[in-house]
């Protein structure tokens, strides 16, 4: 039996929700980054699924490839921030980083 579009979307949605919950609950900066990856990949699944089931052609795949590249770049920058944060605070607990408070 071939999986339908809704199955893909369901997987994507589960991934997205997991990522969001991870971001919202983890106090560890690395954990937050992981949640971000999950959110992005959930979106990737949606792009690919729509690409497969509609007449969009390869656009969705190309888009998801860009997202992956962007995610990698984002992870690199975010890890650099995390490293510097750690150097300054000896922790990567995001709740401690409240210097941006208005």
């Amino acid at each position: 039996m071939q999986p339908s579009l809704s199955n893909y979307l369901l997987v994507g949605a589960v991934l997205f929700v997991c990522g969001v919950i991870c971001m919202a609950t983890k106090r560890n900066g690395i954990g937050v980054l992981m949640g971000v990856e999950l959110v992005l990949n959930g979106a990737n699944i949606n792009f690919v699924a729509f690409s497969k089931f509609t007449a969009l052609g390869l656009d969705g795949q190309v888009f998801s490839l860009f997202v992956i590249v962007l995610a990698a770049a984002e992870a690199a920058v975010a890890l650099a921030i995390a490293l510097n944060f750690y150097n300054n605070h000896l922790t990567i607990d995001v709740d401690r980083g409240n210097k941006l408070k208005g």
Partner: protein
Amino acid sequence: MVGETLRNYLMIAWLLPLAGFVVEIFFGFYSKNPRHSKAAAWCAVGCIGAGFLCSCAALVTWGNANDWCALEHHDSHGEHADAGHETAGHEHGEHAAGDHHVAEPAHNAAAAGEDHGHEHAVAAASGDAADHDDHASGSQQTTYSGVLYTLGKFGSLELSLDYYIDSLTLVMFTMVTLIATCIHLFAMGYMSEELTDEYVDHQAHTSDGKHVHRPGRFYRFFAFLSLFCFAMLGLVLAGNIFQVFIFWELVGICSFLLIGFYTERKSASNAANKAFIMNRVGDFGFLIGLMVLWTFFGTFRFGDTTNAEGVVAEQGLFSMVHRDEATGNFLTEPITGDVLITDNHGHALQQDGQNRSIPYYLLVVAGLGVFAGCVGKSAQFPLQTWLPDAMEGPTPVSALVHSATMVAAGVYLTGRFFPMFVQEVLLTIAYIGCITLFVAATIAVVATDIKKVLAYSTISQLGYMMLGLGVFGWGAGLFHLITHAFFKSLMFLCSGSVIHGCHHEQEMPKMGGLLKKMPITAITMLVGVCAIAGFPMLFGLHFSGFHSKDAIVASALAFMKANPSHFLLFFIPLLTAGITAFYMFRLWFYTFWGTPRDHHVHEHAHESPWIMTVPLLILAPLAWLCAYGGESGPLYLMLTGDAPSHLANGVAAATEGGLVMPGHEAVHAVHIQAGLLALAAAFSGALIAYILYGTNLVNVEQMKNQLSGIHGFLANKWHFDDLYDALFMKPAHKVAAFCAWFDKTVFDSILHGSAKLVVLVSQWDRIFDEKVVDGFVNLLGTSTQSVGRSFKVVQTGRLRQYVMFIVLGVVALFAVVFTTFPG
């Protein structure tokens, strides 16, 4: 050729004083020791002296060019008249031809008249030109005119510096330069007190009552004198009436500078202002005259302008009106009575097919306007009051102003412009002169300041000149101008010598008995006094005033005989001739005769140095003899060489309501009668003066008290100053006071009210600004701030909270999207 030579000579004579002025004022300013150097004075004397030589050369050139025909053809006329003259004491019968070159060695270079006396004999031998009629524009050209420099062209109006040279110009040039040279020399001695770094002016006080101390202004004085001469010579040489006006004003400003030379003295600066302002009144009329002339004639030039071929290119004023041979009046349009503007041959000029013409009354206006300028400049009634006040200047200035330059300018212009005057204007001139000569002479009788007496006598003599011109005695009036210039400059210099010798004492009652102390001054003064009184015969030669005054009185008598209704024009001058002799001899007896009245003054009096007496000794023979030969002598003939041609024959039959113009014949016919009457008047005047002031027969003080009413009236100058004070000054003050009041009450209250209103409005405006505008802006600011502050709470800096917001936002977005587009 001759014209160019003449022009060059006169231009040198004219421009040298200007160069002198520039050198003196700058040299004086920049030189190391300006306050002690006489260089400026020598420069001034050199310039004007060289000018005199040039003038003489020009005179000789002019005479040679026309074979002295001016002397010639008139002479026949003169001799003709002489036949009846022998008995009157004239003796040119025996001097008819060759005796004039028995020139006085002392001044043969100076006396212009002598030269032609000699030349005249030569011309007589050639017999040339004897058959010419009296028209100066006969076959010989005697008038030269042309353009020196074009100042500018404005539409059809061309302003240029022109020259107009005729016998009058030449005689005036010679006279002015000669007298000015003498005055410059005299001034060198008179002004020597100024050769100091600290001159103490005893008549000027500072506010704390001390005498004014100031640097000497010797060089400046001579610079001004030079400028004055330049202006006067420019006026005489001027070839158009506008140029005359330019130099007219220049003469005015120079007199202003010189009268106010002792500028620290209040009286001097007031006198300078008065002279200047009085002249402005006359100049206003002059300007109106100029406007009328230009509007109708379109040119200011006197003479015709010729092009290279000698053809008339542009007509001058004098050739644009023609007189009818029979009536002596201008040619007029038969119907309208307007005066025709004609070409050189008396044919009316055409414009748009019509004869060009000028309304008769406007010609009268033009003439009166020009004459108004002359009234101001020559101090005629009613503008005569500035001249006595002008005595505040240094005495050499008075001499120059009163003889050769300033006041002569008015008479000169009246003479120069004579061809354009119509009968009515001439009659006005005659009456103005008549009033002036009488008023001034009576005031002179009671004046005690030696210079004031001379000042009033100047006004009076100027009145004679104007009268002479007004009664068609063109030659007589200008003859008197020249002779008067000589004897009046002499007398002023003498009075200067007296004042210098008496240490600046000018009041005659403090003098007396100065004859022994100052013999040269006294004798030369006596010569001047005899000349102005019109005495005949000294060593067989008549005084100049005798001839010239005779000529005027004769003209007046002839005029009266022709026009009996104007009898005053003869009797008043006749009476005044006696008054003249009286006050002049009074001056002389008062000053030099009798016993000293103030011993302090008398003891310190001394004769002046040679530099001051030499000019007296030069001028005295000239004052005595310059009119040698009277109306057949060289000076008169030279002067009248280019007399307006319509005067000679006279007009027997006047037009309706017009004047009868006596010709030369008529004047000569009454010459003896007039001369005898004038002589009798002069002798009786002099005799009375001798009895009153030369002897002790009559107590003058007592007499003065008995006649205190009339004495006061005369001593107050006929109350002219009071009259002008009441007529002009008081109303002016009243008007000014009213204006001040109006200004203070009305204008100021309007201004203050509006200022208050503005303050009120601005106060209200301030409130509006502060409350409404500022409040609104502040409200905007504070509300923005508070909104921002309230949003600040949201930005907690907690990362996880932000994620929660994102999530909630996404959910809310979805909810909105799905509820809005349920499909």
